[in-house]
């Protein structure tokens, strides 16, 4: 195992200065995620327009570098995508993070692929997968408007 794989510069940078932090105006969907054992909290705000396009995506919360970076990167990559494409990207992320594979997604450019793959170091740290996936599961909750508080400590371990 190599710490540099886990704490890549992109992760540290996003962990320190997360993008899309705060409550976005006129959000149409929202959901909360909470991992009680480690205390990580995330609140996702999603604004879908009439054409089912993600017009805005932001978050509030606190957590470790992995969870904040993962949330920040997620908001960057999903913002501007159509809902169906967004859903496919979430699926691709979930497959990548739990296996050792590259992310399979054609609509990402090289720069975006590098960003999402910067989270792949988590694959070597099973106890930290839940940190990386919390925001993504919470975004699914927001999309589905199921009112559920996500907890990846139960789902992922």
């Amino acid at each position: 195992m190599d710490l540099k794989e886990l704490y890549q510069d992109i992760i540290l940078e996003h962990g320190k200065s997360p993008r899309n932090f705060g409550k976005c105006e006129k959000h149409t969907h929202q959901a909360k995620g909470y991992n009680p054992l480690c205390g990580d909290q995330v609140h996702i705000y999603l604004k879908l327009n009439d054409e089912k396009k993600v017009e805005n995506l932001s978050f509030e919360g606190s957590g470790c570098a992995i969870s904040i970076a993962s949330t920040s990167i997620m908001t960057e990559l999903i913002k501007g995508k159509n809902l169906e494409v967004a859903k496919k990207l979430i699926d691709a992320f979930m497959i990548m993070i739990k296996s050792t594979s590259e992310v399979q997604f054609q609509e990402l450019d090289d720069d975006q692929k590098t960003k999402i793959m910067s989270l792949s170091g988590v694959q070597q740290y099973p106890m930290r997968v839940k940190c990386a996936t919390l925001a993504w599961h919470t975004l699914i909750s927001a999309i589905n408007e199921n009112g559920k508080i996500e907890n990846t400590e139960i789902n992922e371990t």
Partner: protein
Amino acid sequence: MDITHIKSQFPIFSRKINGKQLVYLDSSNSAQKPTSVLKALDNFYKNDFSNVGRSIHALAVNATNKFEETRVNVRNFINAESKDEIIFTKNATESINLVANTFGKQNIKKGDEILITELEHHSNYVPWHYLREMYGAIIKFAPINEDGDIIISKFKELITSKTKIIAITHLSNVTGTIVPIKEIVEIARKKNVPVLVDGCQSAPHIKIDVKDLDCDFYAISCHKVYGPTGVGVLYAKKKWLEKLPPYIGGGGMISEVKKDRITYAPLPEKYEAGTMPTAEVIAFSESIKFMESIGIENIVKHENELTNYALEKMKRINSLNIVGNPKKKAGVISFTIKGIHPHDISTIVDEEGVAIRAGHHCCQVLHERLNLIATARASIGVYNNKEDIDIFCNAIEKCRKVFDLK
């Protein structure tokens, strides 16, 4: 005191973690086990195994004698009046649940008050919360100050004519605060309120004398006292054990069972239903022997020195903040580093072979009181030495480097 010799009695320290020597600083969570305890477990299963207190064959008699020997050893270890005041449970959590449940059934009505503190572990809050749910009891939290000490004057004020029981920790698993239990019990006595002490953290680290403390109940988890998992102790004054109803029902805790009535066994069996963790209870005798072979005074002295050494070193690390500064502190050091989340600290020091804990340590009320979401915690056991602290502090420096902190 020869720490190298003590450490050599713990086989786990010969293994490597991530290719590094293991530095175990998570003893508040659970302590490692000396060879003597492991041998006792092995020997019992290999050569002596039988259930206790039931059959009359040679193995059963021997097992029963050894089981009861542990009870006497625990009695001596905490200086209880009688061996009948020692009840074996699954862990301290069960010990507290036993008291909450049976005491609650008999004594708690709507509007009655239970006084606990902001320092409590969830295991000394949730069982009392059940009484709030079931009987409409009111739970009051005695406040602490910024240092992590209970404010005694406020504590006094919170005892009213409706206070039915006080439940309080002896040693905080977050701030390391050693609570002045004797003083607390004296205050409670004046108002005629019984006191339960959560001794989970204190039992391995300070001398326990229940007669001197004069508390009504004292709960211990043996796995934190260098013993096996699955065993806890409830000390309770005889008058309570005789008066309170039984807790778990089943074999072993009965006297006479008829279709229309049941009578219960005398103490201590009244509270020990079903087959107990026999091997584990018997092996716990070896944990007590291990601690007594070193001497509690020596353990206290060594751990105090090491705690002070660690605190001095940690205070010199930039942006590291130690949680609490109690008047009397044991080797439980919770801390935060500005700019690094406790989970990231834990993962990075783990790469260096250092085991610490990160999270809220089952004390969400306390973390909220201190405006913290999570903390990292290094906790000391008798086997730790200065080299462990040095390796730990170097690992912390590595965290700072990974996160590029100045």
